[in-house]
């Protein structure tokens, strides 16, 4: 914490090397948030840059009330939200209800199955992690933006419910319940796609 303060002071004083070190330390976090929230590949890197330009310009306003990672995460999240608003992407959707065990074909489910070439695999085929992850990334991309952000911050950046709540201005309980619902839904998707026998 003390080192962090020292670094911030150096950056405010104009030390670009200190700033570069900060970018190196937090680029993963920013990249995770932006890449997960923004689908347009051409814009992603520039948005990541925007985030760090904002970090630089506002660093003197950073109060040590929260962790620097949370503060930077918040800037990244808000930058993406503003971008999506500009692009008129619907922001506050909810999860499509996923009733497991029912084979009723909601329009949602149909379009989902249409997107999966070949449908379910044969039981004797094994699924490589890589293939599974690819499928999963595609499924995550279909989730509402808040769910994507929460999954990413929790599983990629190991942030706590409280830290994620600070970043997204949500109560801890909401973060926890969104996380639970998203993972339950994704688990059901995995089971639909890959019959249980082939998972290990």
């Amino acid at each position: 914490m003390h080192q962090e303060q020292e670094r911030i002071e150096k950056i405010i004083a104009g030390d670009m090397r200190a700033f570069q070190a900060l970018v190196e330390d937090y680029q993963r976090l920013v990249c995770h948030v932006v890449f997960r929230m923004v689908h347009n590949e051409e814009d992603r890197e520039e948005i990541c840059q925007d985030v760090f330009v904002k970090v630089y310009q506002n660093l003197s306003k950073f109060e040590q009330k929260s962790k620097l990672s949370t503060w930077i995460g918040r800037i990244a999240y808000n930058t993406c939200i503003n971008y999506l608003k500009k692009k008129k992407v619907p922001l506050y959707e909810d999860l499509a209800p996923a009733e497991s065990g029912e084979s009723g074909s909601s329009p949602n489910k149909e379009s989902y199955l249409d997107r999966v070439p070949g449908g379910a695999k044969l039981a004797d085929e094994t699924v490589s992690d890589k293939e599974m992850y690819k499928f999963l990334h595609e499924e995550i991309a279909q989730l509402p933006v808040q769910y994507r952000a929460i999954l990413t911050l929790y599983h990629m950046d190991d942030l706590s419910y409280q830290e994620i709540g600070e970043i997204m201005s949500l109560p801890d309980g909401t973060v926890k319940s969104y996380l639970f619902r998203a993972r339950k839904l994704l688990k059901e998707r995995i089971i639909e796609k890959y019959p249980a026998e082939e998972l290990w």
Partner: protein
Amino acid sequence: MVTDKRDEHLSEAQLQAYLDKDAALDRKWADKHLGNCPHCRQALSTYKQLYRGLADEAGFMLSANFVNSVTARVEAEKNYRFDHLENGLMVLLGLVALASILVFTDWSSALMEYFRSGSISLVPSFVKDLPLLSEGRWHLVLFALLALSAVGLVDKMLVQMRHR
């Protein structure tokens, strides 16, 4: 959410709590149940795979020169802001200098002289009237302002040269 139901399978919430290492879950009970229940072991294994997939960073890559690109943009925006500040300051200095000249030179009599004589001798009359200035200490202020403007200009030229 994570209460024990001794006789039942682990709920979805309990399975997730198990992998989240949630302290609210009775881990001893869960371990014992998992040891005896292939159904829950299977569900847990699916969740484990999901968790691994959620932490998978494939495709999350910034270009190799990302840090340099950001630094360049920050520098450019700093210079842009600085340029504006500097330009503004220099315009202000110019206005102050002009105002000082207007207030402290005898420009009205110079103008009168101009209208009276009908000649274009405005500039010489200014020069003639300039000594009026040196009666106060305003010539020092004017000199300082001009010197500052000159320093500003040189500084700007140097910065621009360095960037080229």
